[in-house]
């Protein structure tokens, strides 16, 4: 999914947070969104995810304005994971359940992704009782299970152990390679952006740098 942003302006009270004239996030690529704290990265991600509609300008998804079908084909992984008070396997299967996927098919696909994230020992545990690293892996697995066309990631690997980071980066790359899904990742880690990203966007005081 290609994202094009035109004349985007976002204000909080009277302060301008975003001022983007023209920005394109290429289809099928992993794009890194970097910049200092308070530069508007998370705000931009929320706008693209359709969670924040209070802005001026136009955001298009493969040439279309946001609609129900686009909502169904994208997802956002937050920095602080929120997992439902259900088992890990039920959490991961939830987006498939929403899409009316057959129960047997859900079981298979959840099993596969649990294997890929190496969290087989967690599948029957209550998700809201997991540690930070475990939660974030489950959070990403839940986002990837339905093969979204657009994956938005807001610092998904901050404050987690190196082994979990390795697994998550591997799965983001695999997702992009296998499904050709577009990825937009906010990160403060330059090394991580080098490992993952095809393109980089630098945001400073709400404006695109390069």
């Amino acid at each position, binding site marked *: 999914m290609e994202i094009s942003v035109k004349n985007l302006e976002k204000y909080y009270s009277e302060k301008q947070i975003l001022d983007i004239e023209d920005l394109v996030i290429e289809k099928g690529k992993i794009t890194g969104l970097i910049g200092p704290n308070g530069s508007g990265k998370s705000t931009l991600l929320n706008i693209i995810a359709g969670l924040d509609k209070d802005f001026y300008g136009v955001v298009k998804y493969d040439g279309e304005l946001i609609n129900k079908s686009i*909502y*169904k084909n994208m997802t956002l992984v937050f920095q602080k994971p*929120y997992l*439902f008070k259900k088992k890990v396997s039920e959490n991961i299967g939830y987006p498939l359940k*929403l899409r009316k996927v057959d129960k047997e098919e859900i079981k298979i696909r959840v099993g596969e992704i649990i294997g890929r994230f190496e969290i087989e020992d967690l599948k029957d545990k209550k998700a809201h009782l997991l540690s930070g690293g475990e939660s974030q892996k489950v959070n990403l697995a839940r*986002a990837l299970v339905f093969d979204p066309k657009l994956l938005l990631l807001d610092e998904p690997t901050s404050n987690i152990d190196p082994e979990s980071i390795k697994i998550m980066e591997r799965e983001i790359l695999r997702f992009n390679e296998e499904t050709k899904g577009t990825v937009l990742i906010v990160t403060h880690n330059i090394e991580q952006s080098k490992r993952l990203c095809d393109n980089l966007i630098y945001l400073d005081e709400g404006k695109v740098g390069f």
Partner: protein
Amino acid sequence: MDYIYDGFKEAIKLLLGFDKEVYGIIYLSLFVSTTATIISSLICIPVGIYLGIKEFKGKKAFSRTLYTFMSIPSVIVGLVVAIILSRRGPFGRFDLLYTPKAMIIAQTLLVTPLILGLTYSLSKSRGKEIEKIGITLGANKRDIIILTIKELKVDLIVNIVTAFSRAISEVGAVMIVGGNIKNRTRVITTTISMMNSMGDYPMAIALGIVLLLISFIINSAIYSYGGED
């Protein structure tokens, strides 16, 4: 002091002897309050969740009005229902006054602002985050309401029990619309009130013990369920 001791002795006798009148009163109390709480919960929980996460004009004024109605005196509710259901009232032709149905209507109206207000407040503070996650995973409005109910179920159950406690312990509304008619509309609270004014303490004490037992059982069940969850 003897009369208190005798009252307790007599009360235990009534309860253990499965006195028909006492158990009839207990049954009607539970039936009326449970039905009212269920009806109100079925309506107010989805509506409260929806209003809590939705932004709309006049939300602040709505909140204040709702919170005010949460503490509405039961006699006021009883009076309003009695006027509406009385022979000359708009629903007089249904002949509902002084029946258990009228008592259910009154208690439903009494607990509705309470369940709606508590659910609304809960959804306002915690529903937004759940809604956000739901949207990012592809949930529609209906899915989000169901998801929020499931996520907040322990708190919602506590709210329901709070409302049930208000219903079963109130005396004003059921006294006005039920009339405390023997074997027909007499419930625990109206009986205790009547027996007290008559100086007949054994049955009042017996029913008081039952009220406390109901409260204890419900609270224990909730705490053990909440702990497990």
